[in-house]
């Protein structure tokens, strides 16, 4: 049996990175790493040696992360969706056409992943989103959780979910255009 210190030594950074990518808050991510390892120690006898230790730990961590989302979701209801979103609405004129077209840029995910600065920029853009929008985006576009499951977990309607995801993606696209693609001509942007 692995001792707790070895478990932390071997998987601590990996678990922390995973938690931080989902929760975007260092303190909360550190707490979740701790809760995950404590739960792992408790359920150690149930560890199925056919799966890797890391897969097993990530499985436990995903439950802890879902618990966190559920908890914060109860604490902060999704009322901000009832008001118009200036960041989106302001980009269209009174007949619903773009006030200014999105800039011309494109890139391949496999190329972008090599750019460490892009990861930082994306993290920064996610941090700028209102918490709830970042949560639904993370669950849907990173975790690939089915829409119905997100609605159930967060206690929101499908209409609310679709509207939040639209707002999140719209704002992220703008933020990346401004902070990355617009500044990196020759690195995947033609602007």
């Amino acid at each position: 049996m692995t001792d707790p210190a070895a478990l932390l030594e071997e998987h601590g950074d990996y678990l922390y990175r995973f938690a931080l990518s989902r929760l975007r808050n260092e303190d909360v991510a550190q707490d979740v790493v701790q809760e995950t390892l404590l739960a792992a120690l408790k359920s150690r006898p149930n560890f199925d040696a056919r799966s890797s230790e890391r897969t097993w730990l990530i499985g436990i961590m995903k439950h802890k992360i879902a618990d966190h989302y559920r908890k914060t979701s109860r604490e902060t209801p999704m009322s901000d969706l009832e008001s118009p979103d200036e960041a989106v609405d302001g980009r269209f004129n009174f007949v619903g056409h773009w006030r200014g077209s999105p800039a011309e840029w494109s890139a391949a995910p496999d190329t972008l992943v090599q750019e460490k600065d892009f990861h930082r920029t994306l993290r920064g853009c996610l941090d700028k989103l209102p918490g709830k929008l970042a949560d639904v985006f993370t669950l849907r576009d990173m975790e690939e959780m089915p829409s119905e499951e997100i609605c159930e977990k967060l206690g929101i309607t499908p209409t609310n979910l679709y509207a939040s995801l639209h707002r999140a993606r719209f704002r992220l696209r703008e933020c990346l255009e401004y902070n990355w693609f617009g500044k990196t001509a020759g690195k995947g942007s033609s602007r």
Partner: protein
Amino acid sequence: MMTCEKAVGLVSEALDRELTPSELKKVRWHIRLCPACFKYEKQIQLLHDFCVKYGDHICDEVELPEEARTRIKAALESAGSRKE
């Protein structure tokens, strides 16, 4: 014709639910004729594809801070000794 504002909403929703045949027809038609929404759709798709494939790695250069490591280690040891 569908407005750009409506079209970009459906571009996003298409990633989360199956659009009705009528919605799909209208949004495809709009995008064929609108270079701005054409670009928007490609870029949203890129963002989605990147996050699905590499979302787990956006914090790869980050390390668990030493003080958190010490704190967690102490909590694990304390839980372990209680168990014994």
